[in-house]
């Protein structure tokens, strides 16, 4: 993964994969860090009377820089749909997006002069922070989850996972034909369970309290538990199949959970960005409306 420190010294001219975080020797990290440092030092040195706020000349300067940055950062959504390479490759763009986005924490907060309250101005600041924090979470997930995702898949594609489940379902269906209606109902419960169901919370936590397959197997054990395994009892076969299905479901659900953790930040990052653009509009117009 991109953030993993490479301990093999790189030869000159050797090209290894460089993630967007390490892009061009942390060029954008340095630029953004320098910018933040300048902003903080200037904040401390410039004597704004009576105290720092968005309406001082320094406040307006930071506000303008911040607005420009936010608009440019938003453009990643447009830019990522057109891949090009070179100096302004998508990777370079993403690297700049991440580090300049982080520098907005400093620029935006210094712009407020730490004067926060229950108003549209602080709403804009809070939304900006939400966007940045969700982005930080996203980077963290991108850095840590793919390895776990790959380990869990065990060389299977998503399609193969689903096909495996379907195969077990078919076998279950066939094996359950001789069962009495009560037992058949249990098997049907498992068959009719949506492997992708359970809702957002179950996806994120990986806990499926109402797992029908588990319930079916528990129910099935009422009959199989007290009988010796004779080897040709259809109930035993169904029981074994349910167990196999459970294992497959567990793998699928781990996969879904990792993917959910990988994706969820964008459901905050993108809508909060749009809300931020709206709040910024209201912030700027209102400031000059009641100048």
């Amino acid at each position, binding site marked *: 993964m991109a953030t993993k420190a490479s301990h093999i010294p790189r030869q000159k001219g050797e090209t290894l994969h460089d993630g967007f975080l390490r892009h061009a020797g942390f060029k954008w990290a340095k630029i953004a860090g320098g910018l933040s440092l300048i902003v903080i030092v200037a904040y401390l040195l*410039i*004597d704004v*009377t*009576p*105290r720092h*706020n968005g*309406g001082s*000349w320094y406040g*307006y300067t930071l506000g303008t820089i911040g607005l420009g940055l936010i608009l440019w950062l938003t453009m990643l959504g447009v830019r990522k749909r057109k891949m090009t390479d070179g100096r302004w490759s998508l990777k370079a763009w993403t690297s700049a997006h991440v580090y300049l986005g982080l520098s907005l924490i400093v620029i935006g907060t210094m712009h407020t002069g730490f*004067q926060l*309250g*229950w*108003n*549209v*101005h602080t*709403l804009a600041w809070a939304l900006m922070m939400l966007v940045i924090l969700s982005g930080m979470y996203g980077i963290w997930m991108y850095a840590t989850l793919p390895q776990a995702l790959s380990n869990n898949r065990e060389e299977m594609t*998503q*399609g193969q996972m*689903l096909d495996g*489940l*379907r195969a077990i*379902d*078919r076998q279950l*269906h*066939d094996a359950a034909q001789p069962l*009495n*209606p009560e037992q*058949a109902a249990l*098997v*049907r419960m498992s*068959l*009719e369970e*949506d*492997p*992708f169901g359970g809702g*957002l919370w179950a*996806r994120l936590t990986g806990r499926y309290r109402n797992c029908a397959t588990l319930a079916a197997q528990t129910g099935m054990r009422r009959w199989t538990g007290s009988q010796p395994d004779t080897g040709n009892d259809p109930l035993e076969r169904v029981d074994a199949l349910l167990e196999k299905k459970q294992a497959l479901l567990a793998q699928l659900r781990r*996969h*879904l959970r990792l*993917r*959910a953790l990988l*994706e969820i930040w964008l*459901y905050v990052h*993108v*809508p*909060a*960005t*749009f*809300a931020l*653009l*709206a*709040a910024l*509009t*209201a912030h700027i*117009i*209102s*400031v000059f*409306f*009641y*100048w």
Partner: protein
Amino acid sequence: MSFEIRQISTTADGREIVRSAANEKTQISIGRSSENDIHLQDLAVDPMHAEIEQLGKRRIRVRATGTLGFDVDGKPTLDAEIDAGKGAELRFGGHRITVSPGDEAGVVLTVQRVEAVSDASEEKDEVRSFSLAGTMLGKRPLAWGLALFVLLAFLAVPITSYLLRPAEDTRNIYEVMKQKGPGEDHVFGDASWSSGPLSKAHHALEGKCESCHEKAFVSVRDTACKTCHEKVHDHAPIERIRKAPGDMGLGRQVLASVGEMFGRPGVGACATCHIEHEGAGPMLATPQAFCTDCHSSLSERLTDTKIGDASDFGEAHPEFRPMVQVTPGKHPRFDRVSLAQKPTDDSGLKFPHDVHLSKTGGVAQMGRRLSGEYGFGDALACSDCHKPTSDGVRFEPVDMQRDCQMCHSLGFEMVDGTTRTLRHGQPDQVIADLRAYYRSTGPAVPIQLGGMSRRRPGNYADGKVHHAYFGAVAARPNGADAAIAAVFSKGGACYDCHTITPPGVADNANWAVLPVHQTSRFFTKGWFDHKAHDTEDCESCHSAPTSKLATDLLLPDLKSCRDCHGGENSNTDVPSGCALCHSYHMGDGAPWVSNAGVARPRTRAQ
């Protein structure tokens, strides 16, 4: 009479295979069990689920044998008669059986599995199923929804409300302040635009933004402030104020020029110095920088100014120029003289502070003797003679009767235990009183002249006494002149403290005393409050114990004040901005009343 059972199955590539079988029975069974005529491999179907009986040529009856029913054309039932000629659709679990008429008198039952074996086996959109998209609202509707909400709540609502407010809002701020509660506010939703709470003084205007922000996109004007603050003095003529500011630095200059471009009033406007929405509590005192923008180098731009340049009390402030009495008398002359020139202040009095404050000598001794009556200590202290004003800001003029007369008695006769005194402040009355005294009283009567005893002639000595006495009686009124001269001359009661002009000098017909004016306030351009300094000894600022002359000006100089006071951002005991001593709007009563109401400037500690 027969049934034709067609089983339709679908291959993996979607091709349909139809297998047809005729059944000659009049009653056939349907179920999961393999012995049924129609065997449905469907867990939703009972092993023996239903029976179909042929009633007539085209009529059949379908009857559930167990408790589980079936659907006929979508309607659940346990028993149904069906006209095969009209056709029907039966549903058993995941299977559909279509009833249709056969060739002759037969009924065709077309059996097809219509539901997948399991949920997982149904067709799934892989991209969607494996992502979060299926479990929550999409990013796009979420984004637009949130953005729209913010724009509506924080922009559309307040602006619409602002535009729809009563066109003729004739309320002035006093009326607005009287109205309580948000219901009275004419504009709804603009409270969310406030960048911070208003100061204490303007608290009643909270939420009533349009009281000050009178027009959209027009910055707050002085007219809004002057609705209430009618009597505020201008600091200086506006033309001079405009010329006064010096170099403000590039940043502020750019901001000012941008503001000017958009019609924002610049230097001299109320809002330039008085900044609102900076938090509840007292309004922030105007910072030093707002004064020093102009005053640090005012003389460079307003060359005719009489005011010295000042940029910081601790570092660059002109020496004090107190208003001192240069010439005393009936028509005194006052002048502002820098303390650097060691000015004197002549009130017309003679008074050696050192003698009075000495720990030894006659004054101290007299004080000790009178301590029971007047509460003096071992020696006299400042407060024995100087009385503060009721507000404690400064001191009342020294009053002879109250502050001096306990020692400097003007008594001249005792009548039945009451001391008659000369009238202070009225020299003519003093002269008249002394003349009357000598006229109305005689010398003491010798003892041998008293009594009614008969005297024998030849007693010469008695005759001498008699003559001497009556001679003295006759000459007594003439003694007044000498006494009057003595009172007004050196060694007399008046002369010790006052400047006396004898009769005949300067057109005086009589003895005259130079009128006394005690200066009550030396600093006329800045505040000074003694009460704020009551933790200090008088001597730490006023070197009275060593002063020999009343004309000594005992004011502390700039250097002395700087022992404690420094500029606004200094590390001194009392960081002091300009506003601690000076008032921008001199109409507030300055410098004649206390500045207790004037906010203290911000200090570092705050």
